[in-house]
């Protein structure tokens, strides 16, 4: 078991000075705009995704206020449609995935013992695009031009004939723009985890959070092209009169649904998978033992990430496809519960066999297990075609996916915030505030969403801006609304707790929890170069393992200090064998510039300023060419004698 002190650096003071010289940045506006440091970019992802979460949450509060009583007229149908569409779209695309990518950005290099992500400039580009795509979409709301046909945007409702105006153009272009960031981030995670692991970190020593992030990244790479294709075709249909989804002209309406859900169901796991990785990362510190059944949890991660691509038609059980076709997807939808269940039982066994330390992160993990299992239970019910057809488009579905997504993503995210806050900010949070926040969030969540099962079964359809007084609807809707305010107060307390920690929290030691992974073996917050000495990993729990810790202290070797430049180590994909040093890029204006010209391109396309769009496209090509142009190297480095 570790102490709360980082290993004594095996690097000399002079080497530390040189590392700081190569990796450090002096605070300035220029440094802020051009940084490629994964920790700063990770923090920005977290804050920006948190702001988009707040906007989406306020939209939800407005809707719940409207639905508190029947026949309410607080919001017009048009306003309600835009709010529920932006709520869903933002929660899925602008909060959940970017928030988890934020944790991934901050943590993956620290967990694997590297000095940065594999492609730091691409990382910065991903953040700027995410920011601009989010602003692009939210900016449409004050003008009454926000997307308004649901986050799934089914055709023919979303065609130009039924939804005129810019609404769905904002949706399709916004998601295409955002998709560039998500794809870039995923490639970066895969290459980082495969090539930059510390020497000795073979696949069987990779932390479960990293397994989860890599599996997620692969899912994004395979799933996102379907959504991009869908949105490109929707935009072409709406703007240029193509007929991809028009049956009268040889198109197919169901094509939208197939492509959307080929992306959409894996996306549930894209959201949940890193969160499950968070749970596996948090538990060892608060149970004082490793997660039970590491190999089976790895199997579960791999199996879920593959099977999730074979369940999409269960979102289309009411579309009239042949029943035999349904059965293939029904089988996969049923069996995918097995690897999910393996993880749940592994965590329960870990808690049973370990010594529980009940702190706020563990409370959120327990809240996650309770809520997620309930969501999973109703999910299994949907795998039965007959039941699915009865409750399709009712509030029962809304209850189910909020249990899955709040249980499966928000609770682990909150656990992660409290768990890694000392590492990210260098400050400890207030335990009492955190406990209050947990109980308010937990109670608020269940008071809001459990009644939705009931009025869904009583026949209340989803996506209605108001409703007539019906038996079983009125009272339960009021309960849901009261719960939503309770939930909001709980989430506000989380924000208060974070601000309090940053302003008044006591300084955090390197390892306040006795964690098992490498991020706890360095300072809180980590120095710009992460580790004075890159570790040599000897086990699955390097921070609990004396040999691994010693490799950063007395056992340090010069070829793992790398103080002579901005470099990190490349290692082999399977066994983490040392290959060579690799030079890492420093701060650059290119990511911000490229994101800005892309924003110009998408804005021009939205407003049909095609000449401007053409100029922006040329600017994008020029910036990319400059980015990729090989840097001029000194003759000596190229092996040319003077």
């Amino acid at each position: 078991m570790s102490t709360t002190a980082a290993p004594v650096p095996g690097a000399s003071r002079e080497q530390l000075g040189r590392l700081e010289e190569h990796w450090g940045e002096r605070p300035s506006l220029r440094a802020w705009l051009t940084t490629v440091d994964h920790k700063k970019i990770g923090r920005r992802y977290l804050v920006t995704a948190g702001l988009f979460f707040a906007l989406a949450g306020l939209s939800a509060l407005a809707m719940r206020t409207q639905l508190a009583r029947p026949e309410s007229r607080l919001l017009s149908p048009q306003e309600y449609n835009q709010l529920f569409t932006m709520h869903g779209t933002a929660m899925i695309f602008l909060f959940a995935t970017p928030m988890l990518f934020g944790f991934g950005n901050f943590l993956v290099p620290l967990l694997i013992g590297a000095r940065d992500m594999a492609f730091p400039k691409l990382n910065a580009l991903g953040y700027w695009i995410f920011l601009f795509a989010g602003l692009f979409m939210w900016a449409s709301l004050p003008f009454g031009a926000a997307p308004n046909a649901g986050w799934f945007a089914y055709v023919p409702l979303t065609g130009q004939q039924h939804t005129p105006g810019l609404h769905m153009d904002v949706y399709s272009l916004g998601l295409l723009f955002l998709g560039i960031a998500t794809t870039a981030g995923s490639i970066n995670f895969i290459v980082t985890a495969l090539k930059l692991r510390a020497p000795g970190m073979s696949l069987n020593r990779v932390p479960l959070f990293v397994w989860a992030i890599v599996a997620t990244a692969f899912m994004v790479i395979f799933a996102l092209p379907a959504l991009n294709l869908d949105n490109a075709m929707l935009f072409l249909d709406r703007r240029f009169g193509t007929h991809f989804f028009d049956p009268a002209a040889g198109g197919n309406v169901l094509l939208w649904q197939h492509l959307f859900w080929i992306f959409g169901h894996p996306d549930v796991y894209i959201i949940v998978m890193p969160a499950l990785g968070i749970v596996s990362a948090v538990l060892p510190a608060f149970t004082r033992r490793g997660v039970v059944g590491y190999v089976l949890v790895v199997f579960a991660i791999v199996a879920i990430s593959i099977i999730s691509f074979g369940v999409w038609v269960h979102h289309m059980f009411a579309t009239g496809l042949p029943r035999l076709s349904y059965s293939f997807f029904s089988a996969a939808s049923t069996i995918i519960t097995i690897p999910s269940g393996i993880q749940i039982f592994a965590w329960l066994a870990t808690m049973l066999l370990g010594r529980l330390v009940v702190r706020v992160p563990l409370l959120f993990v327990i809240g996650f297990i309770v809520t997620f299992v309930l969501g999973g239970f109703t999910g299994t019910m949907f795998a039965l075609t007959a039941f699915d057809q009865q409750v399709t488009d009712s509030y029962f579905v809304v209850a189910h996916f909020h249990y899955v997504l709040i249980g499966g993503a928000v609770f682990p995210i909150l656990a992660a915030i409290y768990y890694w806050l000392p590492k990210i900010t260098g400050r400890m949070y207030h335990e009492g505030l955190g406990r209050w926040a947990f109980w308010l969030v937990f109670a608020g969540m269940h008071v809001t969403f459990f009644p939705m099962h009931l009025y869904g079964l009583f026949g209340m359809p989803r996506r209605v801006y108001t409703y007539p007084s019906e038996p079983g609807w009125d009272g339960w809707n009021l309960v849901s609304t009261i719960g939503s305010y309770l939930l909001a107060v709980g989430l506000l307390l989380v924000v208060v707790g974070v601000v309090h920690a940053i302003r008044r929290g006591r300084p955090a030691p390197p390892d306040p929890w006795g964690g098992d992974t490498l991020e706890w073996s360095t300072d809180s917050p980590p120095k710009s170069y992460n580790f004075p000495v890159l570790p040599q990993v000897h086990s699955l729990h390097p921070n609990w393992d004396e040999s691994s810790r010693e490799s950063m202290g007395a056992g340090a070797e010069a070829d793992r200090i790398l103080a002579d430049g901005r470099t990190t180590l490349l290692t082999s994909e399977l066994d983490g064998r040392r290959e060579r040093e690799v030079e890492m890029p420093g701060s650059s204006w290119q990511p911000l510039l490229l994101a800005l010209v892309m924003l110009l391109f998408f804005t021009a396309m939205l407003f049909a300023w095609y000449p401007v769009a053409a100029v922006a496209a040329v600017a994008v090509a020029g910036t990319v060419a400059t980015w990729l142009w090989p840097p001029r190297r000194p003759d000596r480095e190229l092996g040319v004698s003077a």
Partner: protein
Amino acid sequence: MSAHPGPRARLAGGLLFWYAVLGGAVAWAVHLLAGWGVDELTCASGSDHIGGVPLRAAVGAAVALPALATVGALLAAVLLWRRTHPPSEGEDRSVGRGRLLAVVGFWSNLLFLTIIVLGGVALLVLPPCQR
């Protein structure tokens, strides 16, 4: 006998290794796309034959062949598992990594075989084009 296998043996061993780990997943993907695609497109065209072959037989092939391939992958994973063992202190780290992938391959092949078999059961009880 040489202690180090030649390049051909290494290539064959590598292919067998990855077949043991990922064979079931690939077979299931083929089963799903072929079974679902053939069924939906043929029924949409108003026929229950495809190239003169009854649709039930075509979908049956899309179940049976991937199932056989998955059984093969399962056996390869068992072989891989028997040839590895839990890593001990100071042992080459590739042993532990091989063991991990053998276990992952074994359980995932078993899971994919179950999904394919369940699809096959549906073929026995449902007419291919019933809506």
